[in-house]
């Protein structure tokens, strides 16, 4: 598994897990009070085998930080030690595996989104043997050789040796990947639902909540979802502001209570709106049990919601941008807003001595709040020339040192944790190391326009702040709050309320943050990372541009920036800015990369839902399934149907069983369940004309009470289906189709009926499932049936290809004298509910007549002996009736497919035609699909003359037989050809495709 966690754990426990009276000491970075965590109960969890304590309401990330743990992962390419950067979905570094045993291991989870529960076991990834000592980091020694796209330039080896595939690729693949896929099948259940609403609000920050309140108060059916465990967004870490006169957090509680009380509003925490799809369909992924220590087996792990919303309101907030400077990826360097969130929401100090580097006012909020909490804020380095907005002023007033026009030039680690940072002034080259255990950075905020863009909304560049904002949205979609450029609480609430026409809440006590453009240092070099997860550095971006990768999509693909599991949520804007700078074009000209679902990764299981095993696709069984099971049938899947393939008796394999079934049916009688055949009742004065236009055969001339074989062509002239047309009355036909063609044939017929010939008075009704079909075939078929039938079924009264409604065993049945076996045959159609009774009446009589039940395999042999085709076996969509030796019905006019048959290549002499094949060795059964050639030792590249479509041992002939499609085949009867098989070529003689009773005498008795 992952390293050797247990052993590693012991080691770390000695170092970290200081015990006191048999109990782990609580974490050291937790504040004494404040935050929203449940402090009374300790939650025990482990990371890389070391045990820790956390609080209720913690995420794995907050709990680790509370324990002073910053190092949580290794980067993809260089295995650089990495710490927690963010507090939410955007986290690029802190990817962990959560192990729950029994197939419940999940890789690549963001520690910032994993909720703590008692006994949680998490592990770091992509390191060996341990997170602390990772040999993979040796790659860094070769880093100069591994710039962007290095693999395209090398690892090819000398020509002709395939060294890439044989040598280099296996090495690359061994190194690649982050977490490990589980080895055991996932036992958890997943569920999937559709939902509908008037308003879907994605994101439950102040903007989203205000929007949901307004919508809900107006009576709209509303769904408010948020990916976090607790709705509230920025309000969860707002301690100063008052909304409508009450503290923000109180307003939040009141608002949520009000929403909960509205029956038409549904608030869904732990639910990510991950994708916007055409026509206002939004995909939501709800996590149901992952946060529970002991989930109920009744609950699905996750639910997929496919929501159709009249209005989609996006309130997904903004994502803080990192700064790109050398060493910006060190554990201990994190986003300032995240640090503030850890403090105010989880009561966790991310460090005790912090330096803050920022290009945006909001970082001063972190400075102020951290200072208030007793953290030593040693300096705020503002990268802007001036830092004199209200927030910087407030910071200075609070005694925090502010350096405007500063720069971060490097960082230094002690062990695997930041211990100092090198700062300089932009202008004078002075530089100085500051010692600190956390460096907080902020490079402005990127509105989370992901869903807006996915919904095909346009983006608009706002140069002053250096952000893309939602432009013209897709119909029914709107964006509010920080994702729409709102920079403060008041604005977020106002936009939210306005989206539903609600009253705008009044905000007091918030010091405004002045927005400014993002900071780009176009020349920054070295270990200055743009994409943390994929180890893309500013150097790589510039190199890509220099190598001609000018489009931002090229830069992305060449550097791999934004291709990681975070999809560049934090990094993409920096990447864009650097690429634009390298090209010397403005950012908007370069544009963004495409926003694609999902917003954050979604489990395969969630998307697949409950569809597994029999829920993957329905298992359709015939009304006689239980009877077949009782007879010991072996089933095969034909489409969704289970069909009895053969009925082995003791000691029989398939071949023996089939031989017996075939021989017995020919000698006496056989009973076959043909219920899966498609059936369509075609009714109306124009029914005959209609069918005449759809089938190759002459249907109009068919007399009531009689049946005719029919072949249906596609308009392109190829055989599409076949069946029997039984004319029940002048205006009524019972039409059968193949099992797998049933739905398609009905659709094809409806198409012509409704749109091509709407003037025809005819209707189609599917009766496939109404009728069960019991085929009784064989020379003794009539003997089996006659005593059960109320009526005359003699050859005179019910000749071959006749149909009659009769009672059989007291059951009203539609009796058709048809045969797919070449024997005297009856197909008894009985209403499905009566099928078992009919079977029970027939089965002993079959036995008494020395007959058998038989399955699809015997049916195939019986029909092949007669040269009857199976659509889909003798045909494959490229076969014309002429190829099969079928003639167009006499006196017919136009019908579907006819015109196509007259195209030059449909008449070509070299078309493959249906023939019989007899192998030289009568015991040898050719392989189906085998090719036919003229030479006994065909050199590679020999053109095939045709192929074997069906091949069996024929009990009736006492030898093997085969059907084949052969170029100019009918002309070749008697020719000797070859069928190359793996073990050598087999000589075959071309024969007529009917092997048994060509005159059909057996049918008519």
């Amino acid at each position: 598994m992952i390293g050797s966690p247990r052993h590693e754990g012991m080691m770390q426990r000695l170092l970290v897990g200081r015990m006191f009276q048999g109990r782990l000491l609580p974490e050291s970075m937790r504040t004494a009070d404040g935050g929203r965590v449940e402090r009374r109960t300790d939650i025990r969890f482990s990371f890389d085998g070391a045990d820790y304590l956390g609080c209720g309401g913690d995420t794995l990330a907050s709990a680790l930080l509370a324990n002073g743990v910053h190092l949580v992962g290794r980067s993809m390419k260089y295995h650089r030690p990495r710490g927690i950067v963010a507090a939410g979905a955007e986290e690029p570094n802190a990817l962990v595996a959560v192990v729950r045993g029994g197939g419940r291991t999940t890789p690549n989870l963001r520690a910032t989104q994993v909720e703590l529960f008692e006994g949680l076991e998490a592990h770091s990834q992509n390191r060996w043997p341990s997170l602390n000592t990772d040999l993979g980091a040796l790659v860094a020694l070769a880093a100069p050789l591994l710039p962007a796209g290095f693999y395209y330039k090398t690892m090819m080896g000398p020509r002709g040796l395939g060294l890439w595939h044989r040598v280099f690729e296996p090495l690359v693949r061994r190194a690649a990947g982050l977490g490990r896929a589980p080895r055991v099948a996932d036992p958890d259940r997943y569920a999937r639902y559709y939902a509908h609403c008037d308003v879907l609000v994605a994101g439950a920050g102040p903007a989203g909540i205000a929007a949901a309140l307004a919508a809900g108060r107006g009576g709209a059916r509303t769904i408010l979802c948020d990916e976090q465990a607790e709705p509230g967004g920025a309000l969860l870490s707002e301690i100063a502001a008052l909304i409508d006169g009450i503290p923000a957090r109180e307003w939040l509680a009141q608002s949520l209570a009000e929403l909960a009380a509205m029956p038409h509003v549904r608030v869904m925490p732990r639910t990510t709106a991950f994708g916007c799809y055409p026509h206002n369909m939004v995909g939501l992924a709800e996590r149901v049990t992952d946060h529970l220590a002991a989930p109920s087996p009744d609950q699905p792990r996750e639910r997929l919601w496919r929501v159709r919303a009249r209005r989609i309101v996006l309130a997904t907030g903004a994502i803080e941008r990192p700064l790109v400077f050398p060493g910006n990826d060190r554990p201990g360097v994190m986003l300032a807003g995240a640090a503030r969130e850890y403090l105010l929401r989880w009561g966790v100090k991310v460090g005790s001595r912090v330096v803050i580097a920022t290009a945006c006012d909001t970082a001063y909020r972190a400075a102020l709040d951290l200072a208030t909490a007793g953290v030593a804020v040693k300096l705020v380095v503002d990268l802007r020339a001036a830092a004199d907005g209200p927030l910087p002023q407030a910071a200075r007033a609070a005694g925090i040192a502010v350096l405007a026009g500063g720069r971060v030039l490097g960082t230094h680690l002690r062990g695997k944790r930041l211990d100092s940072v090198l700062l300089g002034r932009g202008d004078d080259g002075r530089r100085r190391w500051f010692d600190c255990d956390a460096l907080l950075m902020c490079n402005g905020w990127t509105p989370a326009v992901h869903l807006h863009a996915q919904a095909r909304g346009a983006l608009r560049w706002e140069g002053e702040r250096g952000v893309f904002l939602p432009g013209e949205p897709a119909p029914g979609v709107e964006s509010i709050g920080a994702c729409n450029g709102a920079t403060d609480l008041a604005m977020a609430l106002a936009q939210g309320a306005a989206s539903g026409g609600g009253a705008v809440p009044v905000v007091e006590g918030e010091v405004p943050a002045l927005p400014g453009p993002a900071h780009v240092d176009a020349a920054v070099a070295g270990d200055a990372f743009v994409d943390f997860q994929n180890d893309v550095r500013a150097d790589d971006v510039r190199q890509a541009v220099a190598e001609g990768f000018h489009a931002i999509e090229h830069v992305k693909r060449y550097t791999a920036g934004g291709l990681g599991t975070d999809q560049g949520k934090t990094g993409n804007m920096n990447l864009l800015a650097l690429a634009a700078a390298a090209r010397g074009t403005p950012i908007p000209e370069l544009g963004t990369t495409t926003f694609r679902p999902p917003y954050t990764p979604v489990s395969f299981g969630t998307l697949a839902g409950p569809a597994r095993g029999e829920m993957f696709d329905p298992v359709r069984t015939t009304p006689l399934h239980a009877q077949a099971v009782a007879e010991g049938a072996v089933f095969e899947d034909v489409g969704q149907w289970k069909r009895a393939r053969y009925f082995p008796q003791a000691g029989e394999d398939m071949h023996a069983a089939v031989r017996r079934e075939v021989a017995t049916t020919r000698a006496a009688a056989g009973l076959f369940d043909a219920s899966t055949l498609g059936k369509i009742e075609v009714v109306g004065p124009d029914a005959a004309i209609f069918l005449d236009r759809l089938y190759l055969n002459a249907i109009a001339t068919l007399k009531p009470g009689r049946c005719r074989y029919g072949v249906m062509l596609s308009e392109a002239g190829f055989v599409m289906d076949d069946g029997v047309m039984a004319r029940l009355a002048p205006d009524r036909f019972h039409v059968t189709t193949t099992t797998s063609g049933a739905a398609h044939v009905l659709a094809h017929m409806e198409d012509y009926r409704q749109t091509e010939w709407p003037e025809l008075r005819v209707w189609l009704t599917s009766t496939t499932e109404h009728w069960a079909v019991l085929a009784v075939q064989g020379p003794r078929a009539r003997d089996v049936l006659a005593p059960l039938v109320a009526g005359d079924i003699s050859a005179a009264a019910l000749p071959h290809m006749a149909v009659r409604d009769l009672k059989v065993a007291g059951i009203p049945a539609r009796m058709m004298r048809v045969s797919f076996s070449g024997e005297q045959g009856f197909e008894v159609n009985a209403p499905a509910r009566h099928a078992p009774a009919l079977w029970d009446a027939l089965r002993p009589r079959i036995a008494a007549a020395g007959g058998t039940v038989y399955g699809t395999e015997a049916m195939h042999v019986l029909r092949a002996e007669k040269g009857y085709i199976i659509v889909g076996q003798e045909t494959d969509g490229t076969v014309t009736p002429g190829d099969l030796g079928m003639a167009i019905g006499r006196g017919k006019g136009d019908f579907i497919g006819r015109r196509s048959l007259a195209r030059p290549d449909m008449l070509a002499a070299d078309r493959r035609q249906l023939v019989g094949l007899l192998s030289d060795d009568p015991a040898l059964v050719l392989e189906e699909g085998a090719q036919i050639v003229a030479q006994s030792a065909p050199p590679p590249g020999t053109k095939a003359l045709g192929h074997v479509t069906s091949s069996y041992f024929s009990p009736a002939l006492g030898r093997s037989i085969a059907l084949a499609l052969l170029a100019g085949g009918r002309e070749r009867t008697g020719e000797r050809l070859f069928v190359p098989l793996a073990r050598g070529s087999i000589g075959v003689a071309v024969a007529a495709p009917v092997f048994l009773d060509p005159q059909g005498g057996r049918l008519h008795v």
Partner: protein
Amino acid sequence: MFEIAEAPPATRLMLRGAPEVAARAGAAFGVVPPLEPCRANQAGERAALWLGPDEWLLLAPSDADATKLAAALEGLVHSLVDVSDGTEALLLHGAGAALALSAGCPLDLHPDAFPPGMATRTVLGRIGITLWRRGAADWWVEVARSQAAYARAFLAEAGRGW
């Protein structure tokens, strides 16, 4: 959350034709096939569901005699086909039934959008069904005989975990 019961066997007739066919059939059958889209009319144990502009499903007790109806339609161009054994009906009852159905049915099943008295063909997961809301918490689900087991299992699964 809800219960699934099986409806007793029924007589099911697929009626096709122009509005006057519906009118005349109504007199003989006892329930007028609705002309309004996606509606069902019901009288006692008989019902007529609009399935398409010239298509109705007539439901009657299993011992009902269709010959009277056939006779009444004599002379009008139409199609009447017995499909009694082609489908089964699952009867869902309970407040959670709509939610369970919505696991596989993409229609809006809120009573404002799918009120009692509405009926239509639609889908449930991988199969087609005919869905008729008979009351606020009562649903009649017509499902092909060979797919009934799937439908039952599907709904049972969808109802778990709430």
